[in-house]
């Protein structure tokens, strides 16, 4: 077999165990041809990172390869020594967070030189390094190569890492969620760069992501992992347009998209932890189309058409995603003559960073209708989080007025009246520090009720139970402590805690940004329900346009502290007026856009 015909990567039946002999990943089969981009999609705990690192022979402490074979570019990786020789030469790595992956004491030029194989360091000319930087769109002059990592922006750092990964001319590059930390516009640039490089260098890329829309944009083939196994594999179009595995279909149905306003249909239940994985199909407990066989036997990976494999005996019954109706739906909810719950006028806010005053928001004005949901969207540094904190009373504005119930609010919560503090509540982004680890769920939720509504212990207890119901958690959770809960559960407890004050306005500060796609869908749908149930008005902060389309009636687009566009969500998404909004929309990945493209490619007309 000639060099060109050999696969870039083959994982054959790979299994990696933890010290307790439970398998983190098992029966993993993947093939990649040269010059192809494979998107490895999975949520947390799916095993995608372990799979990726196994290609390098690099598994964490206490992990062992107990079965299977790894072949890179036709070379079998049979010993650790061979693995070590393959690193850099055959396969290289692009990290998730380039800021911490680059040696802070090494100048960029030297860092790249290091990635060139050792034998060639002596003979490497500075021109070679320069040309590598130019290849990824960075300046190649000595002024740039002499910089340190901290002197570059996030996007530049990531491009340096990409340049470094190409430096040794490998057969395969493994990219571990490389654009997760970047803002949408930079992400778009990096994705374009990667596609270009793939074409020019003919190098295969294993692109790991949890975001189906990103995978749709960049990958030719997609493999979906769940609970340590590959559950579906095929061309991107096949897998996303007509997903056959119920989990894949569930993921597709849970992915928000800014081109369509639609309710998400979240998957029920939760992914099993390492110990909970039973004999049968790992997805069976949550599967809407399971049969008895599924719970007894692990399904084989069946090839149902050329190149398309599914690990599900009932794949025939998987309902298709109704793309045509989705694309055609236009929901325009006009809100007229609805009373205002919150009014922000001329808000200006600053904060101190490293001894200097940074202006976070300038002259921001908007109102939130009662029962409505207004989204504040923008990249990091746009001021959206600061505005949220000002509304919640955590940050004093330097200018402007916030009107609530006809009264102007003081800047800081401690200066506000009890009624005002009750009326506005906030939920934060990070579920892992949202709850005091020393307080039980009951204590945490009851506190606002007891403090702000002066409930006695018994009343507060029943209120806790009522609220746990409302966020669809079992009441037994009340006795637990945060460490025992998952991220999604903690976030729901945080919401319940906010509701315990009986607020009118709920400020949500990127509350789903740290959650998996399927968990996010659960929380967003929950939000929709409690909004009507409790009559809440919501201010929703996010950077994700798809989420905006899913939850918000109105949207404000912020750039550098200024509102550049505002209006009805559907209108802004369909026909943006401001250049910045248009840039954001163009850059944001979208499954629908990918489907559209495939449709027009095939000659289908809507």
């Amino acid at each position, binding site marked *: 077999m000639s060099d060109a015909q050999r696969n870039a990567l083959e994982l054959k039946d790979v299994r990696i165990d933890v010290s307790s002999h439970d398998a983190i990943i098992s029966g993993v089969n993947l093939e990649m041809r040269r010059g192809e981009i494979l998107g490895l999609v999975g949520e947390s705990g799916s095993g995608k990172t372990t799979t990726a690192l196994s290609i390098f022979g690099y598994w964490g402490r206490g992990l062992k390869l107990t079965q299977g074979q790894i072949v890179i570019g036709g070379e079998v990786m049979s010993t650790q020594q061979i693995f070590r020789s393959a690193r850099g030469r055959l396969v290289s790595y692009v990290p998730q967070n380039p800021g911490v992956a680059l040696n802070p004491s090494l100048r960029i030029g030297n860092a790249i030189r290091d990635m060139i194989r050792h034998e060639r360091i002596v003979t490497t000319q500075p021109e070679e390094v320069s040309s590598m930087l130019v290849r990824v769109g960075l300046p190649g002059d000595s002024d740039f190569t002499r910089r340190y990592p901290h002197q570059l922006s996030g996007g530049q750092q990531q491009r340096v890492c990409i340049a470094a990964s190409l430096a040794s001319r490998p057969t395969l590059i493994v990219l571990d969620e490389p654009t997760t930390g970047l803002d949408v516009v930079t992400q778009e640039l990096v994705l374009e760069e990667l596609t270009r490089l793939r074409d020019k260098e003919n190098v295969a890329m294993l692109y790991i992501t949890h975001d189906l829309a990103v995978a749709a944009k960049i990958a030719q083939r997609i493999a979906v992992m769940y609970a340590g196994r590959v559950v579906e594999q095929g061309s991107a179009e096949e897998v996303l347009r007509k997903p056959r595995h119920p989990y894949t279909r569930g993921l597709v149905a849970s992915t928000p998209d800014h081109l369509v306003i639609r309710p998400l249909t979240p998957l029920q239940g939760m992914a099993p932890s390492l110990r909970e994985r039973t004999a049968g199909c790992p997805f069976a407990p949550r599967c809407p189309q399971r049969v008895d066989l599924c719970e007894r036997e692990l399904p084989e990976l069946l090839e149902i058409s050329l190149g398309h494999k599914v690990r599900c005996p009932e794949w025939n019954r998987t309902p298709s995603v109704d793309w045509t109706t989705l694309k055609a739906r236009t929901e325009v909810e006009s809100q007229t003559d609805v009373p205002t719950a919150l009014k922000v006028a001329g808000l200006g806010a600053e904060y101190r960073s490293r001894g200097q005053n940074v202006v976070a928001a300038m002259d921001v004005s908007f109102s939130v209708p009662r029962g409505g949901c207004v989204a504040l969207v923008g990249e990091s540094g746009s001021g959206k989080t600061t505005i949220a904190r000002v509304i*919640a*009373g*955590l940050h004093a504005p330097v200018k402007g007025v916030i009107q609530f119930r006809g009264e102007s609010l003081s800047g800081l*919560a*401690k200066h*506000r009246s*009890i009624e005002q*503090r009750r009326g506005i*509540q*906030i939920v*934060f982004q*990070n579920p*892992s*520090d*949202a*709850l*005091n*680890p*020393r*307080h039980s769920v009951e204590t*945490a939720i009851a*506190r*606002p009720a007891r*403090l*702000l509504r002066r409930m006695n212990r018994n009343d507060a207890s029943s209120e806790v139970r009522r609220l746990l119901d409302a966020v669809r958690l079992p009441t037994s959770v009340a006795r637990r402590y945060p*460490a025992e809960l998952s991220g999604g559960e903690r976030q729901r407890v*945080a919401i319940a*805690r906010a509701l315990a*004050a009986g607020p009118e306005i709920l400020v949500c500060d990127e509350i789903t940004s740290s959650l998996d796609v399927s968990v996010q869908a659960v929380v967003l749908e929950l939000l929709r329900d409690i909004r009507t149930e409790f009559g809440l008005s919501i201010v929703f902060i996010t950077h994700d346009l798809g989420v905006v389309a899913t939850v918000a009636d109105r949207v404000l687009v912020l750039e550098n502290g200024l509102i550049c566009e505002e209006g009805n969500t559907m209108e802004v998404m369909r026909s943006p007026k401001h250049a910045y909004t248009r840039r954001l929309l163009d850059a944001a990945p979208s499954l629908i856009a990918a489907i559209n493209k495939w449709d027009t490619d095939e000659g289908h007309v809507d």
Partner: protein
Amino acid sequence: MVFVAIVVLLALLGPLLAPYSPIATIGIPGQAPSAAHILGLDFEGRDVLSRLLYGGRTTLFMCVVATLLTYAVGLTIGLIAGYTRSLVDSLLMRLVDVFLSLPALLVMLVMVSALGPGQFVLIFSSALVLFPGVARIVRTSTLEVSRRGYVEAATARGESTTSILRREILPNIAGPIIADLGLRFSWSLILISSVNFLGLGIAPPNPDWGLMIAENRIIISENLYAVLAPSVVIAILILGVNLVGDAFVRSLGESRGQP
């Protein structure tokens, strides 16, 4: 752990076991160990074993009180500085920095020269020297915890500062503080016993381990146990405390588990 327990018990119960009076002169100075005197006699002819058994109490007492005082002050200052994050913080930290810019032993000696030797001086100056370190650690932990979601949620609820410090912050900075505790205690032990060794702490003829080492160096050729015994005992105590502290830190790290 076992060792520490033994030594502490020794220090506390010693006097009950001592066969002879620790201050009475019994025989010829520097006599080698014999059946009647297991560790021999010291440079003034007193029974070494008895003095050993009596020698720990005062020092241990001083160290315990000093450590308590250190934490009382350090915790308060650290909490306030870390939470208010305002001008108060800068001022307090400047104050702390001044204390940190001098060698510990030097400060203690200066205190002794100003106020004279004595238990309270030792306790006070030891606390003076050690509290800045505690304040720093508490401040850093407080700063970190203050940024967490649940503290901000409490602030948004309008909870009072004392309530937040008590309910949200204090229980969650316990880890680093307890880890530091062992270290501070052993430092106070080292400092106080060093001052005693220099003869500027506990005054003779009272028995004290540090002082014993200093006093009996003269007769080191005749009865080395007079120096060896207190050295070993101090060594075991300090190392024991350090090991216990280390083990504690490690067990905290494990039980904390995944966030």
